[in-house]
């Protein structure tokens, strides 16, 4: 059996194993959300201001909210199995449609954030380790410490104050300038321009984490026996650092990055709210207050699917980075 079929089998098996996980998450979320006081009807009625109890009961019957919880759950699960995520009465749109619209901005933001955080984290960690105990190392460590300790929302607000309002370099919010009706590359450029501040804000914390991890990992690897062997072979320091140590030092950082994708979705709720980024995080935030449980459940489900898939991708990448790990 060659490697690619082996990997394919592995991916298929992992996806199958992901199904029960996702179902369990749905069930758990369903009960958690229903434990909260109030439902969508309460919110709708409150906003209308003049709903009679009869009207509210009628609405509940229409939404299926008068059924016992287990029945509601079974109905929901059946619908999910048929790829129907339900209807958001709040937005008057199918949930699937809503999520799909908001999914791409979040995916874009997350991908940029991960690449920035991992990329720069590795680079800074590497620099710090190479220049151990010099001013460069100290400067990088202080930078990492500060960014690690600063709350996300504050960084976001300060970014807006400094770079948008005072300097006017970047737009304050949104994903694109809708009024400008950009097409083609102009639109790409416009989105990229809007993307800078949210990406930096969201990645700073993780950047600090990966910097510290990478530095520690490099230093640990420098102490390994194979480095002495490499020296005894007469290799240059450059070769030892960039070929031998670097690849081994990357392994724990990649693992960590994979695990943290889930946490990143949580972080994106804050950043999307601060920058009015039209993504899943903001949608989740809004629907929580509107008691739009269908929509929330949908978002949670998509998030869990995302985490399962990303973890799978990381595991496959890992098997390429570290030959000792076999996908099987």
């Amino acid at each position, binding site marked *: 059996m060659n490697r690619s079929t082996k990997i394919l089998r592995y991916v*298929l*098996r992992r996806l*199958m194993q992901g199904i029960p996980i996702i179902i369990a998450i749905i069930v758990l979320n369903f009960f958690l959300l229903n434990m909260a006081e109030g439902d969508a009807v309460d919110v709708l009625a409150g906003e209308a201001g003049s709903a009679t109890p009869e009207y509210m009961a009628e609405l509940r019957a229409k939404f299926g909210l008068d059924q016992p919880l287990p029945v509601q759950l079974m109905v929901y699960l059946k619908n999910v199995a048929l790829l129907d995520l339900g209807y958001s009465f709040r937005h008057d749109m199918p949930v699937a449609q809503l999520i799909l619209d908001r999914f791409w901005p979040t995916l874009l933001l997350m991908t940029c954030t991960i690449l920035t955080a991992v990329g720069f984290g590795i680079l800074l960690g590497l620099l710090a380790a190479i220049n151990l105990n010099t001013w460069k190392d100290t400067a990088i460590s202080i930078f990492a410490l500060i960014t690690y300790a600063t709350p996300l929302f504050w960084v976001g607000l300060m970014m807006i104050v400094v770079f948008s309002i005072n300097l006017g370099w970047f737009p304050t919010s949104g994903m694109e300038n809708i009024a400008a009706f950009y097409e083609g590359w102009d639109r790409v450029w416009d989105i990229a321009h809007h993307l800078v501040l949210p990406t930096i804000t969201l990645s700073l914390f993780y950047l600090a984490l990966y910097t510290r991890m990478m530095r520690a990992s490099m230093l640990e690897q420098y102490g390994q*026996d*194979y480095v002495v*062997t490499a020296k005894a072979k*007469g290799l240059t320091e450059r070769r030892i650092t960039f070929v031998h140590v670097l*690849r081994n030092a990357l392994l724990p950082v990649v693992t960590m990055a994979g695990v943290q994708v889930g946490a990143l979705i949580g972080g994106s709720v804050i950043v999307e709210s601060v920058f009015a980024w039209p993504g899943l995080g903001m949608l989740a935030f809004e629907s929580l207050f509107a008691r739009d449980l269908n929509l929330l459940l949908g978002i949670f489900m998509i998030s869990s699917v995302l985490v399962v898939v990303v973890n799978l991708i990381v595991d496959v990448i890992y098997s390429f980075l570290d030959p*000792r790990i076999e996908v099987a």
Partner: protein
Amino acid sequence: MSDTTSQKLLDIQNLSILLPDGADRRYAVEDISIDLSPGETLCIVGESGSGKSLTARAVMGLLPGPKVRVGDGAINFLGEDTTKVTPERLRDIRGNEISMIFQEPMTALNPVMRIGDQIDEIFRFHVSMPAKERAARALQLLTDVNLPDPAGIMRAYPHELSGGQRQRAMIAMALALEPKILIADEPTTALDVTTQAQILKLIKELQQQHHTGVLFITHDFGVVADIADRVAVMQYGKLVEMGTVHEVLNAPQHPYTKGLIAAIPKLKPRAAREQSKESVLSAHGVRKTFGSTGGFSLFGKKDRVVHAVNDVSIEVHRGETLGIVGESGSGKSTMARCLIRLMDIDDGEIYVGDQEISKLDRKHMRPHRRRLQMVFQDPFASLNPRIRVGQIIAQGPILQGVDKEEANKRAKELISIVGLEESAFDRFPHEFSGGQRQRIGIARALALEPDILIADEPVSALDVSIQAQILELLDKIRKQMNLSMVFITHDLRVAAQVCDRVAVMQYGKVVEIGPTAELFGDPQHDYTKALLAAIPGKDWQTEDVA
């Protein structure tokens, strides 16, 4: 004689290596002078902490600087002082004119780089050669060190090879550019005895072909007897004795050397003793398999199953020491763990006295735990670093319901029985040396007044002089308390010295079992014969006895 001086490859003069401030001594190596000629093998022998490895590393400028550095003296390599040459020149020498192999080939090779690429690096950094020629040379090297399927090994990663194969690959890499000196730092210590014999033979052959000077670091006098031309003995960083292998091994002058050689277990089986017929521990048809269980095996393939212990039956009589010998992976440690029920067995029966224990649940097992106690291999990892020695020893009896005062009193007694000072009671394990910790481990096992002591490689992490003391202690205790012992070891010398009967294990099966003298004198199974033939320094020992 002036002619020989000019021919010397390496001439270390009055070398001192400084330790960092605050270390237990100022010099790791103090005022050492040794030399090496082409085609010669010089063994540097010493126990741990003697500075033998640092001496070897200093030659290549590989000291773990900046704290540990050469303080004084010169290392002349063909007229150049390697302590004073430029870093560029040093890099040029390394791997090209002097190369090195290490103790643990698994960690000494980069785990994420193919063997072929790791050998290729040597060529890339020292000679300019087209890639195709480099690959051909690497392939030839792997063939020269007798590796099967050299082309496959070129593409393999270190973890895909066995220990012996990895060390062969290491040697191929070290000899790639036909260096003038090969430094071998305990290259066979991590290997099984039969593999060790092969690797030593290989080094010897390649040395003869290329007329290489070999600086061989070892703690094992058996290995010295097999390969050395000359021997240098080190203690606490000082050279205590140097001479030809014959002089040093057969007529040692320095008391330290004499003591070391006397401490080596003689390859003479112990005399048979009166045997009790009472069976205290017996195993019948014990099986234990390991295999990866696939959880959801919707798409799973057939799982790999390892028969670690495959239908093993043994019996231990009162007051007897049964040795279980074998190489790594033979299942001897698994067997020990099964006997003491640290692992559940898949099949078979284990009797302690006349009580079957393999199926007892936790609660019913507890009263019988006392009767079986274990001494572990690694005296560093097997003692909880946060618990005082007295508690480590007393904990077991207290759990078994002994009064606390009583248990502490007994613990103090045991501490003096195993030869430690009573003040040890209130100290932590890290304050003791390896040998002392092993004594603590033994005291802990004895605290429960067991019938049977199971010792899993109890001396293999220890220096030879400490090893002799621990073996003596175990023997004394066994006699005093009329204990039975199951002694797991890979070292046939140790087995010969302490065991009344020996069982030889291979691939999970006992291939031969018998009284020690008979088994050593007239081995029946081919594997036993091979093991005995591979014991290092076997011929020297015969001379010694004669």
